[in-house]
């Protein structure tokens, strides 16, 4: 176990909060044990105090390494099932129909980790919506961690990663084997772009999106940071766009202007529009081209709208 003084732990809490708005709880001492040793080796010490001293002196690359080490990058393909089923059956058919004249589609995976979420979207579009192949597609992934963004760009995954929720037909169709790794097809990799972005710091200018995925990130922020990030994300949603949060996350009580719609067991958020309360914008009104359910997905039907 790595010995950490209370003062050093408080410094690391504050350090992580200032750079990422992530709250390192008092119960997270174990994270230091499991994740800091490689960073400690880098400063040539086994002492957290030495690391803290080095951070106090200011070393941008060391700061990045510590933030990377203390953040979690758990992810899988088509994660949690229901949101992707809803995307396949309702959301993407609607967005594709609405954008058929513009022939553009912009999707942002805001906590992209090593890329599985965005590549899952890319595979889904390629397999189920061949009409968008000639469109201007912007499939954009960002993450706080520079290390995972670098990995996402390579499109290389271990067998352990490939096992995590990737249907076998997609593995066969979209990956090639290189030694112990699987590499995503160039045709998909060329359609996505990844960049480092700290959601709680000012963002460089960016476009608005048809679909934003911000799943299981807000739960790690304190309330002021949740409000700031949600408001900024909402302001980058196109008028008919969709926002996806994690199942335990909601904008309710944090920011206004978003309403919840549900389908296939998943909840999405859309911009509130004038007259919503009176007449109700029908949920997935243009989802007439509903896609067939994959065998045995067990997902429910579209079930309407509720306040967000």
């Amino acid at each position, binding site marked *: 176990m790595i010995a950490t003084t209370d003062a050093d732990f408080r410094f690391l809490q504050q350090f992580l909060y200032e750079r990422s708005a992530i*709250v390192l709880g008092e119960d997270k001492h174990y994270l230091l044990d499991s994740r800091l040793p490689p960073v400690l080796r880098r400063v040539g010490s086994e002492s957290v105090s030495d690391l803290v001293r080095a951070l106090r002196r200011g070393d941008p690359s060391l700061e990045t390494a510590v933030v990377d080490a203390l953040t979690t990058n758990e992810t899988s393909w088509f994660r949690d099932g229901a949101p992707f089923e809803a995307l396949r059956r309702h959301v993407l058919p609607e967005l594709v129909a609405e954008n058929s004249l513009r022939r553009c589609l912009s999707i942002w995976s805001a906590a992209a980790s090593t890329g599985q979420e965005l590549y899952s979207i890319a595979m889904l579009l390629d397999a189920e919506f061949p009409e968008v192949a000639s469109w201007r597609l912007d499939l954009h992934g960002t993450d706080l961690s520079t290390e995972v963004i670098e990995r996402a760009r390579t499109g290389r995954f271990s067998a352990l990663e490939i096992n995590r929720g990737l249907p076998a037909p997609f593995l066969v169709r979209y990956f090639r084997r290189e030694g112990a790794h699987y590499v995503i097809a160039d045709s998909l990799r060329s359609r996505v772009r990844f960049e480092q972005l700290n959601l709680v710091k000012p963002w460089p200018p960016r476009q608005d999106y048809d679909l934003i995925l911000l799943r299981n990130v807000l739960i790690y922020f304190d309330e002021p940071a949740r409000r700031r990030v949600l408001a900024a994300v909402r302001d980058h949603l196109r008028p008919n766009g969709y926002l996806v949060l994690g199942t335990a996350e909601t904008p309710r009580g944090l920011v206004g202007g978003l309403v919840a719609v549900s389908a296939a067991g998943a909840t999405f958020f859309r911009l509130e529009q004038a007259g919503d309360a009176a007449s109700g914008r029908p949920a997935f009104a243009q989802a007439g081209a509903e896609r067939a359910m994959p065998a045995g997905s067990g997902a429910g039907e579209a079930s309407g709208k509720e306040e967000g």
Partner: protein
Amino acid sequence: MTHALVVDDSRAMRSLLRQVLERLGLEVSEAGDGRAAIAAISAGPLPDVTLVDWHMPVMDGLELVTEIRRHKEWRRMAIMMVTTEAEHESMVRALLAGANEYLIKPFTPDAVIEKLCILGLEPGARQTTANGGSAA
């Protein structure tokens, strides 16, 4: 209760898969090779899913999948290959023979859960972990 048949000549692997599946609330039975699996399926009741190793004595996994898919009355049973065979060619052969999913050894318990979900066999005790991006 969802019933899984684990077919593997390694007792250790059968035991490992049994632990994972039982923790998810599945009923588990075992067979040590393809021929024993055919006997178990024929005796009934029909499992919801059969997890099949590739390399086994007597009747290997690919032969077993082919044999199972000859029986129309067993069609509703899902088949998942669980194997060290990681080449694309092997996966394609298994899928063409009638396997529905493919899990490469070694694997984590989460990977088993996610593959069962793909097959529509959502385990009652499913626990998702952590987040989709970077967070402490």
